[in-house]
């Protein structure tokens, strides 16, 4: 019964989303793969791989596009969740993959630095030596601007969340 209801709800949501779209066009999406609980001891740091999948046929600018007019992909973490001297736990830095230089039918002579398919961003999380045992949610967003082979879509953002657990020494 629950499965039947869930199917009806999903079908209705799909029908609604399709009816809202331009015929023949699909809105680009990026999916964020959930991250398991990240365990840290006080004073430790760890690299957290954040995995993203871009829908087929789309690409997004890399973190360092070749033109300043293009909107870079960036992981935005609130300042309050960045690691600072007085912070117990936070993101110390973010490392982005290099983009792939690709040309597209709309500009065959131009190379754009892009991500397509799957890509990972590394968030380096750190716990201070004085960090107390407990859970520390990290909540930011991935901002991106996607294009396909003939059109571009306004900048969007998706939430990126994971939890850092500080365990005893």
């Amino acid at each position, binding site marked *: 019964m629950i499965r039947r*209801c869930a199917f009806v709800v999903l079908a209705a949501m799909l029908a609604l989303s399709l009816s809202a779209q331009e015929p023949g066009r699909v809105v680009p999406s990026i999916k964020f793969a959930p991250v398991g609980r990240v365990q840290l001891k006080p004073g430790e740091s760890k690299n957290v791989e954040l995995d993203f999948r871009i829908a087929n046929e789309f690409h997004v600018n890399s973190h360092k596009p070749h033109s300043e007019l293009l909107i870079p992909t960036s992981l935005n973490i609130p300042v309050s969740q960045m690691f600072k001297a007085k912070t117990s736990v936070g993101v110390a830095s973010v490392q982005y993959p290099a983009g792939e230089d690709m040309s597209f039918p709309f*500009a065959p002579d131009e190379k754009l630095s892009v991500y397509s398919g799957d890509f990972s961003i590394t968030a380096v999380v750190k716990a201070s030596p004085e960090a107390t045992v407990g859970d520390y949610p990290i909540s930011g967003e991935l901002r991106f601007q996607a294009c396909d082979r003939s059109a571009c879509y306004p900048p969007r953002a998706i939430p990126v969340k994971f939890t850092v657990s500080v365990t005893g020494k």
Partner: protein
Amino acid sequence: MKRNGLVFIALCVIIIGMVVSGKYLNRVRGRNRVVAGDVRGKVAPDFELTSLDGKRVKLSDYRGKAVLLNFWATWCSPCKVEMPWFVDLQKKYGNDGLVVLGVAMDDSDSAKIAQFASEMGVNYPVLLGTDKVSEEYGNVEFLPTSFYIDREGKFVGKGVGLLARSEIEGNIQKALASHVVGLSEAAESPADKAAGQQVTAQ
């Protein structure tokens, strides 16, 4: 088992109700808007936007002209491909009554947009887009999107994404082919003069 069936039917009724009421609300809210899909024959919603040189520009200022209304952004690479074509087409068909209007959908400031337009050699008015005008034109999400409006202010076509130049030119010719009864094409409105100045100034 019987109870499960009733729950299932109730759920279906609720969902159908949501879909129908959503469509009805969209229709009521969108009476003056362009809906997705075929727009041909519908009247283009009038708007008033600010141009890069600070003037207030209305679509209705260009009644009697064929208008190519192009939504674009500085971050849109396919849009950059079309712009030189629009420059050429404005030169080619300007005397026949074509006006290209660019609507920049950037969040960035107008100085950056003006610099970009200047570097692209744009010879037609560029207006600063708003969410309202995007909504009135059916929520312009895909860039570039162009609307082709005839001399009577009705849509003759719409292009989403980068089109072939020949397709753009074909739509322009359709827009120019229309005639407005009782309005002399030779009459020059203030908007004509403004557009003419912008064309000759660059």
